[in-house]
């Protein structure tokens, strides 16, 4: 209702105007029958046209988005576990979800998607902000640099994933630099072990909560997976940040352009230094930009599939497995359509947890 308010305003603004210019009138100033019909027709089209234009899109969205969400929820509760479609409800109700939440692989998925989203959001927004501030300082060649930083965003995740898989290959990738630059020579001559990280092949989990909190929550000691930061996820975060930091930067540059120079100058006259200008004035004014960027990158992160599929797959011991890959494997390889659908529904809920409050607050503002 509120969204159409502006349209109503416009109508109200024009309604008091005499319609001489368009509707024929007789000598007394009232409408002729022809004029009345035309006026009614115009009124009708004015009222009917907007819904008419919107209807096809509405129908498409209702069918292809909401009907399919409903169908997916139904499939997740059904017996459809082979190539033959079987939409009867599976007994007991919701058993597929129960089985899924008992799977160690699913536990690893939830851990990974949480860790990945947290690291990826902070690093891409952080780098994006730093780049934007540096470019805002009008360094030499800032216009070239601005494009250079944004270029990775134009690539598809598949390309990024394959390139970074080669870079982080422990035998042929970045590790050769440690030898080539003499870093390993230096370390071994000082009596240390040469650097040779396994990157995406390393199944280790950092900061494992299982041992730390095992005393408080005994369940953690016998948990099916290690709760912590899987080391193999770090290279994936690096690749994802490389691709999307430029996007965050572009958002911030756009935001900074709207902050007037008078504000900064006023602060400078009051004796604020550059650091204070950024922390006290620019950053607070950029808050809405940060929120929008976080929402956009956050939902990319929760749904991520292609980058990880191309770069590491499920990874050693599911170190880089995410719900997207789980859905693909269970649906098309295992032909457990109900299980794949159940995982999709959980993914939808995770994304909604981010998107819905954002949309809600936006609507409330209007």
């Amino acid at each position, binding site marked *: 209702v509120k969204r159409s308010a502006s349209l109503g305003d416009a109508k109200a603004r024009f309604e008091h105007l005499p319609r001489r210019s368009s509707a024929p009138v007789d000598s007394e100033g009232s409408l002729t029958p022809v004029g009345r019909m035309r006026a009614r027709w115009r009124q009708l089209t004015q009222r009917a046209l907007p819904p008419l234009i919107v209807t096809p899109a509405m129908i498409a969205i209702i069918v292809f988005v909401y009907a399919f969400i409903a169908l997916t929820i139904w499939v997740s509760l059904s017996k459809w*576990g*082979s*190539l*033959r*479609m079987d939409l009867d409800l599976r007994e007991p109700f919701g058993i597929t979800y129960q*089985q899924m939440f008992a*799977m*160690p*692989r699913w536990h690893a998925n939830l851990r990974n998607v949480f860790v990945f989203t947290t690291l990826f959001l902070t690093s891409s927004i952080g780098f994006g902000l730093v780049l934007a501030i540096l470019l805002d300082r009008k360094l030499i060649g800032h216009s070239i640099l601005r494009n250079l930083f944004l270029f990775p965003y134009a690539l598809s995740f598949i390309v990024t994933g394959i390139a970074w898989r080669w870079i982080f*290959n*422990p*035998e042929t990738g970045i590790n050769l630099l440690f030898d080539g630059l003499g870093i390993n020579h230096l370390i071994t001559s000082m009596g240390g072990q040469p650097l040779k990280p*396994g990157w*995406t*092949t390393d*199944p280790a989990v950092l900061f494992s909560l299982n041992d730390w909190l095992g005393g408080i929550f005994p369940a953690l000691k016998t948990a*099916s*997976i290690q709760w912590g930061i899987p080391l193999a996820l770090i290279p994936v975060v690096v690749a994802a940040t490389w691709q999307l930091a430029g996007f965050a930067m572009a958002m911030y540059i756009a935001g900074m352009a709207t902050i007037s120079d008078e504000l900064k100058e006023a602060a400078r006259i009051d004796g604020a230094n550059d650091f204070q200008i950024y922390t006290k004035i620019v950053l607070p004014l950029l808050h809405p930009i940060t929120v929008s960027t976080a929402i956009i990158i956050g939902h990319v992160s929760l749904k991520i599939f292609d980058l990880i599929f191309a770069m590491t*797959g*499920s*990874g*050693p*011991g*599911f*170190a880089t497995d995410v719900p997207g890959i789980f859905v693909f*494997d*269970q649906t*098309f*390889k*295992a*032909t*457990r359509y109900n299980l794949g659908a159940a995982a999709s529904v959980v993914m939808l809920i995770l994304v909604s947890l981010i998107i819905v409050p954002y949309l809600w607050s936006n609507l409330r503002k209007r």
Partner: protein
Amino acid sequence: MKTKRKLSSPLTWLFLLLAVQIPFTAFAAGGDKKLEVFSWWTSGGEAAALDALFQVYGKADPGVEIINATVAGGGGSAARPVLQARLAGGNPPDTWQAHPGWELLGQYVEANYCAPITELYKSEGWDKVVPKTLTDLLSKDQQIYGVLVGVHRGNVLWYNKKLLQKHGINVGDKMTMEEFFAAADKLKAAGITPLAVGDSGIWASAQIFENVLLATVGPKGWNDLFNGKMSWEDPKVKKAAETYAKILEYQNTDHSALSWDQAVKAMTEGRCAFTTMGDWTYGELAKAKLKDNEDFGWVSFPGTDGTFIFVADGFTLAKGAPHEKECIEWLKVCGSKEGQEAFNVLKGSIPARTDADKSKFGPYLNWSMRSFANDELVPTCVHGSAAPASFQQALNDAVTSFVVNKEVNSFVKALTQAAKDADMTK
């Protein structure tokens, strides 16, 4: 004026031309004899083998245009979703590649996507030359639903002959698990990684477990496990998991970054001594121009001598195939001696019939053919014959975890649960 200018613009003419063109080309494509073959054979040797089969077919049934619908991706990981979508959408290819057993019967026949070809087995005389163990895995309710073109052996241990000789290790014509561990210890002490593994596709590791499992439970136990007579909680399965955990100590550390063929390369280049993989490895070895029994040697996977894990490839007849007559001719070629000989020499597998001309095949394939004719045949699980796709996936998942945490109990528990969910007792 306005419309005239529009019509005279070159772009408009281009569109008009295209619009006229499209219906004509569509008609031209519709008329002739055609055959659509769906497979995931795209890599060097595989594509060449498929092409050889096409050539034999071209002679048998001339004038048919073959649509080679391949989707790249190891083991059909990318092809299967495409096939499933086409089948569900009622637009099947005439024939598609399928593994016998659960993949063919449980997925395609059960869902009513295949037409039986039982008569061909009699008219072409295949019932006399194809082993019954194989035809059983193509049959449901006395009807046969596919024809096999070639058979791979899954339980082979390959080794770098020169490297082993250098370290004074002799491999006879069979090997026990103890002998393998003794050799592995010796190599490890000499600073050589004993076993090359490339499990960027986790099925490669699942296949090692499959081999260890067969070595531990034997062919009878194998069949009992997969038809539900033996529990996956049996102590023997636990013992197999323990043995596998021990083998993990001997494999290369970068295994998860390598694919199976890169692991084979690590073996041939002498970075590792052994590798265990199905005999599609032979295609890689032949491509690298290495000599049987000179550069590389082979033996049944330790403890599995006398048993042949078969990974067979076959073709189906789609129910309501758009070009049924051509497709039946195609299946006749697939089952023929001539077709199988042309195909398998290039694919590095052996014919699925026992009367093939052995002189056309090299030393390794002759060894495999002897084993195929004399040994006990058991179906592979990792490649979809012995168990449903859901169990296959669960095994892959369980192995993914096990390679890292080596927890025997949770491994066995996961397999037991999967066997229960998949209802394999049928």
